[in-house]
């Protein structure tokens, strides 16, 4: 494959955007639907997509888990009138950093080679996972055109 993240950002043109919505079936905790959007059918394998969304959901569940750790954090914070967060990172913020790193890694390894780009949900109000679909340039003179992506886009 010849797509990489740099190339995608600087020279590919955007075709479409897909928005993966929130799954509210378990309440207001942050969770995204794992339903595979039809627009991505020709671009990425269903299993890879589901894996990404499930991992993200696990991260958010970890951030929002209410247990011993969150009780401790709340009690310590309250006893310092929440001033402790001026020097300490909250648990949620720590997990958000992990998520940002994970998304960057997924973009580099999985999605950019397929002409896709995932936007971190925190940049969209935690409402959607925005997936940008770029034009598939598998036919423009590359010697090792990837078979799965070039076949469907005849220009």
């Amino acid at each position, binding site marked *: 494959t010849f797509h990489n993240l*740099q190339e995608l950002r600087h020279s590919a043109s955007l075709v479409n955007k897909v928005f993966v919505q929130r799954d509210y079936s378990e309440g207001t905790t942050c969770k995204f639907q794992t339903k595979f959007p039809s627009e991505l059918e020709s671009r990425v394998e269903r299993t890879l997509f589901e894996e990404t969304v499930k991992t993200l959901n696990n991260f958010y569940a970890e951030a929002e888990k209410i247990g011993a750790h969150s009780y401790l954090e709340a009690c310590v914070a309250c006893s310092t009138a929440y001033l402790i967060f001026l020097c300490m990172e909250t648990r949620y913020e720590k997990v958000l950093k992990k998520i940002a790193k994970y998304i960057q890694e997924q973009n580099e390894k999985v999605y950019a080679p397929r002409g896709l780009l995932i936007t971190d949900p925190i940049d969209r109000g935690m409402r959607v996972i925005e997936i940008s679909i770029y034009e598939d340039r598998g036919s423009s003179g590359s010697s090792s055109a990837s078979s799965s992506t070039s076949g469907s886009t005849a220009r």
Partner: protein
Amino acid sequence: MSAVMITRKVRKWEKLPGKNTFCCDGRVMMARQKGVFYLTLFLIVGTCALFFAFECPYLAVHLSPTIPVFAVVLFLFVMAMLLRTSFSDPGVLPRALPEEASFIEMEIEAANGNVPAGQRPPPRIRNVQINNQIVKLKYCYTCKIFRPPRASHCSICDNCVDRFDHHCPWVGNCVGKRNYRFFYLFTLSLSLLTIYIFTFDIVHVVMRSVDSGFLNALKETPGTVLEVLVCFFTLWSVVGLTGFHTYLISLNQTTNEDIKGSWSGKNRVQNPYSHKNIMKNCSEILCGPTYPSVLDRRGVMQQDDSPSLTTAATPSSTSDSTVPQTTKPTAPLIPNEHTPDDAKPSIATSTEISTSLTEESESTAHKVPPLASPETDVEASIAKAAAH
């Protein structure tokens, strides 16, 4: 060919829609009308000042020095909670960007099908099932999103707020998911402070009356009369409010839901968010995670406004400084409001533009790459300082 440069970096809070006021370069976020908030501040600080001036000297000597110490601690906690409630983002949901809005519109049209001419289109509602309860999500025409469960649009601040409780003029802000626990701790600690001051006012007056009679005692400490007045009226309202919110927390309901009677029990409708256990409900709200703000207030807006093609040392960390910048829209490095469709150079949006031929000759004129890193803004402002 003249060089144009931005001279001021614009932070995202300056371009946020909604009727909020921002201070300290985006760190503080409040509603527009702050008059009642100043009154709250005045009442609390004023009453405590009177307490420290009149009661504390006498009681520290005649009863115990721990009385003023505890009063100070309580006062500081009340102020911290008040300011935290008033200054933080209550959980505002950012408005949908154009692509997301049109994606949702398409989904709505697909769901509604063809509406015959002359008929009103059906209301925009999405049904979700939460814990075996059907909850209707309403579409917000202002923010162009389907509101998440428990979110509501505040007309005073013109924002959709997550887990919207109510808009409180006394704190000058909405009360929502992110600041509800601070609001509750504020009302609770203020109740305690009011009861504390009221009690020791009475103790003080009684002790003085024993020595010199009631009327003389009042003449000696006029401040106490004022304090008692304020505390008396505050007690009824604040203690009542604390009790009300304790009730709401134990049921995991919001004021908004309570007022609308969303879970009042008719039609066998029950609160799907309640854990049916008072301790679990309380721990979720008071000991739950501290949610992050999804409004990036202090992020720097990307300003693609310089059409000049001269590239001196580009400070950006990407290694493509020799690639000539084309005018074709490029994908943003940091996904933000400027999608490729919007990222056309627009000089009109930058606030101050100084054109200077001398800068070009100094070869400090450099095109700000669309993948603007903070360093470029510093370079731009340094260059401006040099030009002046």
